[in-house]
Structure formats: structure tokens, C-alpha cells
């Protein structure tokens, strides 16, 4: 009984103060280098380290960015890009996750499909862009399709790997409790796979933006990729940088959003650096 008592007295309440302080510290650490970088961007053109015509100072970029926000121009391009990438991304998840679970669950399916999957995985999505444009035209369909294509592989392959790599001991332990295959899948395989599937989803999120911007740069009438090339052609250099900045922000936003979801679903995982 002694051990039981000593364990129970070891439970201590959380310390909220310390928590706030450490999170402030974290914000500081994460932003300090970024702030320095923006400062450098501001100073370098001012003192003539780089040519202002090709590399305008940070404040001019921010001003033209703000002007584009006010005029509504940026929002239109932003919406065009986000609609395309989200539709392609969502479609990819809808297809790749169930398919991956199925392929991972049935060894025969895995064996049959493995060579094809390897082939597609190693085909750069952008290399197929001309094919998509030939087949689907330069409208929305080809752009959504290329995002869909690019997002499918990381999610599919990670889902298959996740199902195949569930700790056999957990399966054994669940089976010893006499649960059905269906319950095993639902209550063990699926939850155990979530973190690995999410890694794939995050990879897909990054890929979605990358591929879409490239596609928009080649053939589109709106979207952030189009904004960049259009500005460049018309020598609106600050606008071009404003477009680039927006894309970076968009990428960051998507990644943060997905990380947050990932943490929510994987809170049972041991933090890597503890």
C-alpha cells in the first residue's frame, strides 16, 4: 500500500504562470531572426547594397501589398488560388485516404499496386502539366487536377505505410481480447495510423501550393502565380514581391493549420524533444 500512497501524492497541479512565460519566450525565439531578416531587406536597398529597381525595400513592398489589398485585387487572386488548391487537396484526401487504408489492409492489393504506385510517386507532377493542359484545357479543371494529382501520392503512400506499420504487438493485444476484424481496423489500425497519415497530409499541403503556383504561372488569367508573372512582365516589381510574400504567407498559413490539426489528433504522441 505504501507504493500506492507515494504515487498518488506525486500528482501535482499544473503551473499556469510558468506556462505563459515559456510560451512568450518561444514566440520571441521564433520571431527574432525573422525580424532581423526584414530589417536587412529594408536596409540593403536603402544603402545601395542591391539595386532598388530589382529589389525594392521592404517598406515599398508592404505599401504596394496594402494598396492591392485595398483595391481588392489581391483578394481576388488569393481566392482564385485558394479555391483551386483547397478543391484539389480535399479531393485528394477524399480519394487517397480510403484507398490507402484499403490497399494497406489487404496485402494482395499492396503487392499488386506497388509497382504502379512507385512509378507515379517518382513522376514529378509538374512534368505532367503539359499533359493536363492538353487533355483538360487551361481552365480551372486542369489546375485542380494537377493539385489533386500532386497531393494524392504523399497521402496515399503514407496511408498505406501507416496501416502496414502498426505495431504488431498492439494488434496481438487487441486480438487477444477477441475483437472482430472490423473492430480491429476501426479501433486499432485507424487510430494508430493517424500520425503517419497526417505527415502525408502535410506534405500534400506544401505540394499543393507549389504545384498550383507553377501551373498558374504557365497558363492562367488569375491567381497568385499569375499575379507574379504578370507583374514581372509589366515591370511592377514591388507588386511582384508583394505577390511572392502573399504566397509565402499562404504556405505558412496552410502548414500552421495542418500542424494544429495534426497536434490535435496526435496529442497522445510523445513530444519529440522531451
Amino acid at each position, binding site marked *: 500500500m505504501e*507504493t*500506492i500512497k507515494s*504515487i*498518488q501524492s506525486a*500528482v501535482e497541479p499544473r503551473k499556469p504562470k510558468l506556462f505563459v512565460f515559456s510560451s512568450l519566450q518561444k514566440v520571441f525565439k521564433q520571431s527574432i531572426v525573422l525580424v532581423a531578416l526584414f530589417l536587412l531587406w529594408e536596409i540593403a536597398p536603402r544603402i545601395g547594397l542591391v539595386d532598388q529597381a530589382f529589389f525594392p525595400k521592404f517598406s515599398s513592398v508592404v505599401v504596394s501589398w496594402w494598396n492591392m489589398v485595398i483595391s481588392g485585387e489581391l483578394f481576388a487572386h488569393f481566392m482564385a488560388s485558394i479555391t483551386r488548391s483547397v478543391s484539389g487537396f480535399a479531393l485528394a484526401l477524399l480519394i487517397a485516404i480510403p484507398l490507402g487504408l484499403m490497399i494497406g489492409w489487404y496485402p494482395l492489393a499492396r503487392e499488386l499496386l506497388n509497382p504502379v504506385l512507385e512509378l507515379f510517386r517518382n513522376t514529378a507532377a509538374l512534368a505532367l502539366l503539359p499533359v493536363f493542359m492538353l487533355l483538360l484545357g487551361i481552365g480551372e479543371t486542369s489546375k485542380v487536377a494537377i493539385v489533386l494529382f500532386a497531393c494524392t501520392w504523399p497521402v496515399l503512400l503514407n496511408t498505406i505505410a501507416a496501416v502496414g506499420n502498426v505495431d504488431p*504487438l*498492439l494488434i*496481438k*493485444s*487487441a*486480438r*487477444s*481480447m*477477441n*475483437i472482430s476484424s472490423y*473492430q480491429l481496423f476501426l*479501433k*486499432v489500425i485507424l*487510430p*494508430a495510423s*493517424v500520425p503517419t497519415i497526417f505527415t502525408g497530409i502535410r506534405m500534400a499541403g506544401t505540394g499543393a501550393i507549389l504545384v498550383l503556383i507553377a501551373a498558374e504561372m504557365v497558363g492562367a488569367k488569375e491567381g497568385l502565380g499569375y499575379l507574379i508573372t504578370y507583374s514581372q512582365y509589366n515591370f511592377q516589381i514591388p507588386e511582384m514581391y508583394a505577390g511572392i510574400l502573399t504566397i509565402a504567407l499562404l504556405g505558412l498559413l496552410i502548414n500552421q493549420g495542418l500542424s494544429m490539426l495534426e497536434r490535435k489528433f496526435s*496529442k*497522445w*504522441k*510523445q513530444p519529440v524533444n522531451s
Partner: protein
Amino acid sequence: MTGTEKIRFERVTKTFTVRDTKQKGVMQEFTAVKDLSFTVKEGEFLTLVGPSGCGKSTLLDLLGGLSMPTRGRILIDGEKITGPGLDRGIVFQQYALFPWKTARGNIEFGLEAKGVPKQERRERAEHFLALVGLSHFADRYPHELSGGMKQRVAIARSLAFNPDVLLMDEPFAALDAQTRESLQSELLRIWEKTKKTIIFITHGIDEAVYLGERVVVLTPGPGTVKTIVDIPLKSRLEDADIRSHSDFVKARHEVWSLLHEHEYQGAHI
């Protein structure tokens, strides 16, 4: 209560098909356990001791219905084991807790699969958390628990669906000496309270003698029953330092001698 036969091993042999170590691509039969015959009485605490690799886990898998004997049969309550069942609960050495479930969630897992209603699941989980002294840790995830606590949760999880038989495969081997000793006496306390039949596998002689009413000594390669030793210790829990008691020392020496006879040369005990 004791005396009735609960489990019977009848000439149980298990072979595996393995790759030949010398010739590539050639398959070979490998006998893990051979002609095992022994019985376990209802409510008995039986320990099995033998060197690593002698087929202890194989034997437990067979009992758990996770694999089938190649020859022979295992009877439980007179009926042949044909698969896993909730009449047997297994506790594994590496805990095998579901990392995405809290301590409580883990204990409720088997009940959930069984279709026990939510309210009752809760109550039973509370009861068994208290039994293993972890009431305050109900909402912790496994990675937030120490090894000893994880194993307590695993024990509680197996007890929760109320099996007749508890099968334990070196459950305390990964724990430090002090935690191991306290869990050993706690297990004895739980056994006295719940009256389960317990089959406990270990490669520790001390542990086998301390816990078991009888100790089955296994020989290596392939695993067979060498002898079954009766341990005439009465109240292990009343005597705080029973390990220095002359009866304990004698029993321990007997098992030790059996495990150091010539057929164990080169085996890892």
C-alpha cells in the same frame, strides 16, 4: 475451490517454418515447444521458468488462442482452445497499451469491444484503476506514465473484462528491481482478492519461486517440461522478508539447481 482442473496441455508441440540459415531460400521446420503436458488447477498461481528462447512466449500465444498447436491440444474447462476469448486476459512484457488512449480508455477497451454500456464501463474502469492504485492517473496517456504504472494499467485492462485466467508473459522483466518487487506483492494481493487462475512466465528464478504455488521448469531447444516443483510457502505477504526465509532459500536453490544441469549449457538464463 482449488483442486478442479482448469487448463490441460496434452502433448502440445508447436513448430515454425523458418528459413534455413545455411542455404538461401530453403525452408526448414523449427520446433519451438515439444510434447508439453501439464495441468493447471482452478485458482492456482502457476509460474513457468526457463531460459530465454525456450518457447515460453510461444506457449502463452497458444494458451491465448493467438496461434494453434501443430500437434496435441490445450483444454480449458475441458474444451479445446480454438481462438482468443475473453475468458483469458494477457499481460505482455512490453505493456502493449494503446498509446492514443488514456489509462482509463485502455482499461475500457476490452469492455467496449464486448459491448458493455458506457456507464458500466466507466464504473468498472474506476474500480480496476483503484485496484492497481492509479485512480489519480486515469486521464494520463501511456507516455506520461512510468514503466511500473504502465504495467499496472495493463494488468487492470486484462482484469477489467473479468477473465477466469490471467496469462502473464514476463510482465515485470523490464522494470527496475524495486518496482518489480512491489508489483509482485501487489499481484499476489490482487490474486488473493480476485481468485483468478494465473499463469505467469518469467526467466527469473526468484520471481518464479516467490509468486508460484508450483513452478514449471522448462528445458531449452525445443521447450519441454523438465520438472514441476511444489513451493511450500504459506503466507508470502505476511512475511515482509520472505526471500530470506529458509523455505524460500531451499525452494529457490532447488529450481536453481534444475536450471543449471547439463542440458542448459550455453543457454541464456
